[in-house]
């Protein structure tokens, strides 16, 4: 009940931020269509956040491993998918949506996700498995992995830039398939909204539903939930907990890859985003509660609303033309949540 009240009470607060500045920038009442657009932007960004962060939360919840390489996995997946898409379309540097068909978007995804899953599996088996229970050491190991992966990405990606030159880790675009490149009339306040972002929202919801079905309606999911509650007891019951750990790590890494393909199609992929997405995942699970799927969803929505509304509705004009406060608001969000719920909104004590 308390969780519910806090969750509901915090969301209007972010709406309040939007309304509070309305006198300067046109309120939700005066300009409902831009308000609605920002709501939709937040929701669709939350979908991408949820996909990436749910993988992070799955790994953390079961194994207590803070996978500091999650952002690096994200970045690597984005570059792999980009290379595959470039290879399939045979194009040069940047692509128009109309030049990409559905398969040329799905195949990069289907290649990138297993690649990252394999990378995750190798890291888990080679380095993390025999350090079970030493959380800090595992975190340090994944930091080392992230340093190596980030540097190798700069050394090797993107491969086929123009004139055979290699600019390590520069920004490249993944492209949505052509049929998503149009605006849909939502018939609410005359809002025209990008179909690609709605597809992204759909994928996010599908991942959420899929994870819920997997965790709450299958035997593997049951074992994982048992492992989250009590690893030793689960192992003592004769369940092969190591196999479960490996499955969770593989799925968690693949979710980072899926999120990367989805968000890189909307935005772009460039070196340095590994840190950005590690931060995103961390904020989402800190706010939402460690290791809970519902927590990841709630955290993703809150974080997306705070950062989008902060960027859109707080003053950015005047002498300090480019000042943005969204990162400070992110800190305020963390501080507020942790002040009342030290383990996050949906967190339970370990």
């Amino acid at each position, binding site marked *: 009940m308390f969780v519910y009240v806090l969750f509901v009470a915090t969301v209007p607060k972010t709406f309040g931020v939007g309304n509070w500045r309305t006198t300067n920038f046109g309120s939700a009442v005066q300009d409902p269509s831009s308000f609605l657009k920002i709501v939709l932007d937040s929701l669709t960004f939350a979908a991408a956040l949820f996909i990436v962060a749910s993988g992070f939360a799955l790994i953390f919840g079961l194994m*207590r491993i*803070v996978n500091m390489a999650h952002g690096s996995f994200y970045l690597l997946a984005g570059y792999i998918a980009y290379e595959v898409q470039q290879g399939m379309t045979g194009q040069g540097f940047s692509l128009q949506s109309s030049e990409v068909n559905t398969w040329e978007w799905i195949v990069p995804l289907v290649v990138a996700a297993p690649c990252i899953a394999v990378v995750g599996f190798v890291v888990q088996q080679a*380095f993390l498995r025999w350090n*079970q*229970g*030493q*959380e*800090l*050491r595992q*975190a*340090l*190991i994944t*930091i*080392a*992995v*992230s*340093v*190596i992966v*980030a*540097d*190798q990405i*700069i*050394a*090797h990606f993107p491969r086929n830039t123009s004139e055979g030159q*290699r*600019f*390590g*880790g520069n920004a490249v675009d993944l492209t949505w398939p052509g049929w998503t490149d149009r605006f849909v009339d939502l018939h609410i306040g005359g809002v025209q909204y990008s179909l690609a972002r709605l597809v992204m929202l759909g994928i996010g919801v599908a991942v959420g539903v899929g994870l819920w079905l997997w965790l709450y309606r299958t035997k593997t999911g049951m074992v994982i939930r048992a492992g989250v509650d009590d690893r030793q007891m689960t192992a003592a019951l004769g369940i092969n907990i190591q196999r479960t750990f490996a499955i969770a790590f593989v799925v968690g890494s693949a979710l980072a890859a899926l999120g990367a393909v989805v968000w890189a199609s909307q935005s772009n992929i460039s*070196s340095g985003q590994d*840190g*950005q997405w*590690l*931060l995103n995942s*961390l*904020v989402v*699970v*800190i706010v939402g509660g*460690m290791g809970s799927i519902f927590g990841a969803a709630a955290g993703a929505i809150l974080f997306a609303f705070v950062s989008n509304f902060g960027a859109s509705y707080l003053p950015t004009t005047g002498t*300090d*033309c*480019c*000042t*943005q*406060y*969204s*990162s*400070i608001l*992110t*800190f305020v969000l*963390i*501080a507020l949540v*942790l*002040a009342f719920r*030290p*383990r996050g909104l949906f967190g339970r004590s*370990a």
Partner: protein
Amino acid sequence: MNPAGWTRRQQIERGVSAAALVLVLVWPATGFSTYWAHAILTETFLFGIAAASLIFLSAYGGMVSLGQTALFGIAGVILGNLATKGGPGGTSKGLHLGWDPTVALVLAIVLTTAIGVLLGAVAARSAGIYFLMITLTYSVIATYTLGQVTKISGFSGIGGINRYTPGWIGNILDHPNRLYYIGLGVALGVYVLIRYVIRTPFGLALQGVRDDPVRMSSLGYNVALHRTLAFGFAAFVASLAGILYVWWSGQIAPGNVDLPQTIDLLVMAVIGGLVRIEGAWIGAFVFILMQNYITSSTHVPWLGFGGTLFGGSFNTIIGIIFLVIVLVSPDGLLGLWDRFLTPGGRIRWRRRRQAAATEPAGLTPAG
């Protein structure tokens, strides 16, 4: 000659420390290598101070903080905003208030410590791995805040701060030896101060909080308050490093506090070992040596380097070294030293590792 019944290990360690101290004291006077004095050793002193604040929290508070780089940068930014002057020949970014540098210096330390207490209070109810995650977000948020709030810094940062040093220090651009000795003095002062603080009632209670927060809480100690104060003290230490850094390099920018820098500081602390304060300067020294000599001269063909941005080869090498150290000796170089010097140290280390593996979640320091 064996005064006061020192063990053989103490003899060796104190002998080596004394020799190293004498060496760094006379180094600039020998005129052997000013590059070593003004680039490598001065940098070692100041990053060692920052790493010492991290090791203090980890070894005595059980909190591995990745927020020290943020505090380090906050101190530098405050100093840069208060002390520099605008106008022709001045700095282009920041508020350039042009206050007296001594006032700016004191304010930078006080404000950073206050911010540290605030950040510590937010994170204080968690420990171990949660603390690591929360402080990591501090660091990344500090980077983006500095980058986005153009009034105080912006992405290009503030430059030319080393021209505004207090009068009693004088011009450190013309007299880099002064900065060298200030760095050495502050480093020694920080070392002695930390050794003192861990022996005070507060320090002892903090170690109790590290070992068993529940028991300390039921004994009537305020666990969150102890953690908050420890974080504030570490912020004070980190602010000293931040000020020395802006005097040394002259500039502070979001790039000085971003995720790679945060990880670099952690790598220094881990190389030295997260268990003893001395490790901070040893780790910083080893790291800066590698940074200076690997980047410029090493080419690693079989990893596919050459012609890449951001000094490509160095980070992979440092990542691999970091990985090996964490896998082989979680207590860093000093941990290795302990193991090979102490009789039975190997066995004790292994036992400790097993004990660590069975302890409850979230309370175990590295290893």
